[in-house]
């Protein structure tokens, strides 16, 4: 995994992007949202920003064991974080 495909900019080097956090699906209280994570060997759902590019916030789903990117789309299409 050395690149991400930004919906606006196309394939770009990983160093242009900044990971923010994994998205919990552990619950919706503020405490759960901020602190708790559900870990998986095969799926990591994340928010990233194309910080040194178009600055889009991205919703990314990856396989953390292989680095394979399964989904990379704009975060804004999902409504809530």
């Amino acid at each position, binding site marked *: 995994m050395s*690149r991400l495909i930004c919906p606006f900019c196309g394939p770009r*080097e990983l160093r242009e992007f900044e990971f*923010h956090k994994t998205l919990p699906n552990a619950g919706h209280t503020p405490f759960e949202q901020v602190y708790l994570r559900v870990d998986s060997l095969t799926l990591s759902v994340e928010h990233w*920003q194309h910080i040194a590019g178009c*600055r*889009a916030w991205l919703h990314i789903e990856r396989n953390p064991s292989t680095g394979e990117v399964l989904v990379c789309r704009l*975060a*804004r299409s*999902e*409504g809530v974080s």
Partner: protein
Amino acid sequence: MTTRRKGARLSPETLGFTFDGRSYSAQVGDTAASALLAAGVRAMGRSVKYRRLRGVMTAGPEEPNALLTVGAKPANVPNVPATQLKLRDGLVLESQNRWPTLRFDLTALLKLGSAYFGAGFYYKTFIWPKWRFWEGLIRRLAGLGAAPGRSDLPAPSYEHTHCDVLVAGAGAAGLAAALAAARTGASVVLAEREPSVGGELEFETARVEGRSAGEWTCAALGELTRLGARVLTDTTLVAGSTGEMVLHTEPAGMPGSARLMKVRPQALVLATGAVERFMAFVDNDRPGVFLLGAAERYLARYGVAVGQRIVLFANHDRVYAAAARLAAGGLQIVAIVDTRVSGAVDAQSREIAADFAARGTLCLAGHAVFAALGGDAVTGALIGPTDGSAAAQTVRCDAIAVSGGWGPAIHAAVQEGGLKRYDETVSAFVAHDASQWRITAGSANGAMQLGVVLKQGVEAGVAAAKHAGHRGPLAAVPAASGDPAPHLEAYWRAPADERQEKNQFVDPQNDVTVADLRATLAEGFIDIEHVKRYTALGFGTDQAKLGGQLGAAIVAELRGETVPAVGTSRLRPPFHPVTLRSIAGHRFGAYLRPARVTPLHDWHVANGAVMEAMGLWMRPRFYLANGGNPTDAGIVEAGRVRTKGGIVDGSTLGKIEVAGPDAAAFLDAMYLSKASTIKVGRSKYMVNLREDGIVLDDGIVLRMAEDRFLATVSTGHADHMLSHFEHYRETEWSAARITLTDVTDAWAVIVVAGPESRAVLTSVLGSPWHDALAGLRHMDVTAGQHEGHDVTVLRASFSGELAFELHCRPVLAVGLWEALVGAGLAPYGLEALDILRLEKGYLVSSEMDGQTTPIDLGMGSLVALGNPCVGRALLDRPAFHESHRGRLVGVRSTDGKSPFLGGAQLTQDAVSAVPVGYITSSAYSPALGEWIGLALVARAVPEGNMLYVRDPLRGGDTTVKVVSPVHYDPKSERMKS
């Protein structure tokens, strides 16, 4: 001294160099190894652990022993493989790991202890009295060459490039692949580790497309050039993963002028060849023992015979053709020792053997070299049948050339989840790779016959080009003839009794022997990863290229298991060693990171400012005209602001424009207090919280219009705050109509502070601004124009004085600044800024350290307002309301004069080990004539209490009294005047 023969790589010019103080001559084109061998030098270093004398063993980067120091201290370069070092006139070379000289080495006394120094020896001893007692001595004995004292390396160049197909390795497979890909129209980069392309073709007697291998190589290179392919020699593939590969070019064979290239290919062909393997026998590390391929290279390239009377020892048919070539070069082949029984030997090989036997060469099938005989150099070989059916015999020789087969270079192919599988026909691991974009071809893929190698190359080139979107006719595979299969039979070590295993070397650089492997297994280190870590097998500078597979195979033998069941330890990047300097590029020293400067930067520097890095920004700390050090100058500059006035460059302040119909509602959610209540033309000091309720940042939010705000954020937090806002805008607020624009660099900011600030600012901006400035109340904002450019003036103060923030377009900054100076306001720097804000109890990053809540910082009343902003909900957690949590207070010395420093801890008595708080920052206040500070102190400690300042690190323990954080003008009458 051997006689020099004609070598392909050499030019007739000569050069001179020294080795261990003696002068030698060499021909241009020689490596240090070839020149020293030509001069009859066998010993080139000593091993680290047992201090055994060692010579050169290989002709490539896998050389374990002949590592030299180039140049004299302090600019010495250690650990350069003699096999790679291209000689220049005047080079000074030294051997390593010996004292005082290579021949007379006192440290060789360590050999006496070799019986005790087996694997794991360190873990069992040196416990008494303690490791530290022994460590210095042991560190000095370990470590190969001396540490360089200075680096004189020229700056490496850095290049980024793209191509369709990157081919690593320009031997037969790589050339064929590059050619096939280029013929489809694909753009090709071909990287070759050696100074010239061709790889094994250089020594190949077989014919390709009816031509000699050398002629075919030249033709291929010519066609590649015509097709626009880029051919890079002296270039290794060092790292990378899908989509981005890193190449490193190093022409001298040692750290020097280098280039690091990042290539983004669509497809990758790995044609990295194979590394010849070694076999273990007693004293196989003696100077005079070579790899067979190395003996051939030294002869063919450099015209150097590695010995006069040579014994060849191998487990495959290639040794016979090699024997013929070596004999043709004038070497006397004393014996050809083949581990295979005669039935396994190819008919053609048998013919060659018969010829040799007729000329007096001992040709022994089913035999092995049991031991290399001699002292400082090989003088003979002990040869016996592998099955022990007869007694071993001694032959006299001065060199032994060994070939145990070849290990495909799969280092790059097994990264990123690439798998390997054991190929029985070559007794080696090959890449077993399902990757679409990465294809392994040639001997790197276990192909050992030229015809197969070329075919794999062509197929890989076509497939790679296709992956990159280029389709072409399936290229014809060059026909090759005269290259038989090697018919290799795995053989790893000659018979030896357990005592002799101490001298059967597996990894010569780390002195790992068969005995070490046996002992390691006996102690329960069974897995090859454990064996590696316990013995250091494969940890050398050759990255396990020489001894890794050999060691694993012997472990398999000792465990009674198969080689594939044992596997090999995980190969780690880089695929080839690469210098730190090439990786760092120019990013160190003054260029470690770029500097951000304000539009006034040049003025500051020209006018005696001492600049300080704040994050990536450069800001004036103080001006030398006001004192020679920050403390003195800060006092002068701060004092002048209070009595008269001054200006400070505030351009680094982060500025985010928040606009749109939903801007006010959005900011209400981002800040602890509401932005929607700010009237147009007004501003408000506001605080942000992190998601967990901790204070993130503070700043003034200006309302420029009903739907337009300017949020100012701290210099150090600006980047993060922008991302923070953008995140919420793009997620929870994605349906809202808001734009966020970073306008930090669009506005220069000059803070004009002090009693005379209004008058001076009015005079500088001129009559159009007179009324606006005259009527400006505290926290009012007014916008207008100056010299045709936008200007905003905010009346706000971080100094406690009447003050204005002048936001102007950068083009105006220097002019306005100089006008203000001309009108009598002197500039001040960060030092004075800090004194002024401290006197007023305003926060900076030492208070907002990511650990404090708004309640801690005295903003409980804002929390109580109940605005449901980001982070607000988690502020209700009980820990944030406990009485031992800190609150922001002021501190002053009880005697009115003793200094105290930020970072000092505060306790309730003189001896307590439990602090109740600490001083966040302190300064001498010119306005109050004494030291003042801010502190975070437990809420349980009331104002007026005395606390002990505990500063054991710097001394200066004293006592302070807890006071209000606002030391100066507590009612803020001055700034509101």
